[in-house]
């Protein structure tokens, strides 16, 4: 294997068992999200923050394990997280600008 190939494929990937557990965790979190939607908890002030946290956890799990970003080159991490941070800042700024969020 050449240096180039080594640099590109040096990362290890999760095993089938890890993939299976990732799928189970994603399914359980999704089922929990839908379940609390049908409970009185949905009127609680903690409902939206909890859903956003659970969604962020699912997002991170897919990116880290299924997209292998946890094991991949730091340049790929930068190429993804840089625009993602800009995107999240843009959403937050626009929601403040249009009075959907209040300081």
């Amino acid at each position, binding site marked *: 294997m*050449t*240096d*180039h190939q*080594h*640099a*590109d*494929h040096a990362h290890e*990937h*999760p095993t*089938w068992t890890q*993939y*299976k557990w*990732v*799928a189970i965790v*994603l*399914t359980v979190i*999704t089922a929990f*999200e*839908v379940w609390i*939607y049908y409970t009185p908890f*949905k009127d609680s002030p903690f*409902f*939206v923050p909890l*859903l*956003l946290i*659970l*969604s962020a956890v*699912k*997002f991170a799990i*897919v*990116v880290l394990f*299924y*997209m292998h970003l946890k094991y991949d*080159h730091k*340049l*790929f991490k930068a*190429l*993804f997280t*840089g*625009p*993602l941070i*800009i*995107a*999240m800042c*843009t*959403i937050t700024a*626009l*929601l403040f600008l*249009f009075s*959907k969020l209040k300081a």
Partner: protein
Amino acid sequence: MATAEHTHEHVHYTATGLDNRKIAIWAFIGSECMLFASLISTYLIYKGRSIVGPFPHEAWTSPAGQVFKPILNIPVTSVSTFVLLMSSLAMVLALAAVENRGKPGYVGTALGNSKLWLATTAALGATFLGFQAFEFTSFVHEGLTIRTNLFGSSFFTLTGFHGAHVTVGVLWLMTLLFIDFKRGLTPKDSLIVDICALYWHFVDVVWIAIFTLVYLIK
């Protein structure tokens, strides 16, 4: 040696030692993050500002006395979300099957059958599109089109863009499946499967955000 040189004729590495195709797909995914951020922002800004119904979470009675139910169907969308999450599992198994072709534990087993996992991923993606077609059709029958109100405009634009991305992903997967049937995908082809997988998982994570922001949060 001759084989190694021959392989390098077709591969373009950058100064970082990384294949430029993989850098390109990550840069593309980064740009897609901003595209979907703009669509999600638009949806959230317009949320609750429609003057006429139907509305996503509340019933509405028109001036003519016609009653519209809350339009979002959470149980159906929950199932389609589950289908898309499982397609991501099938996709990583397809990549693992190609990368590990010929290795112990993969030869002659379902885990090593890349055709099976590519076909499963494409089928689950097509099923998701079927759910979306059903949802769009039922919304139109219930009186919500892209021109009805701000909710309809932003909802169909956001989910329509996502559906278009899923459609591209299914076509991409079917192309890989065709190549696999035609000449067989080998570990040397793992990068082209990896690039498709990255796109597919990105489509999945976008839906994770849409499902929470559009469907579950009132």
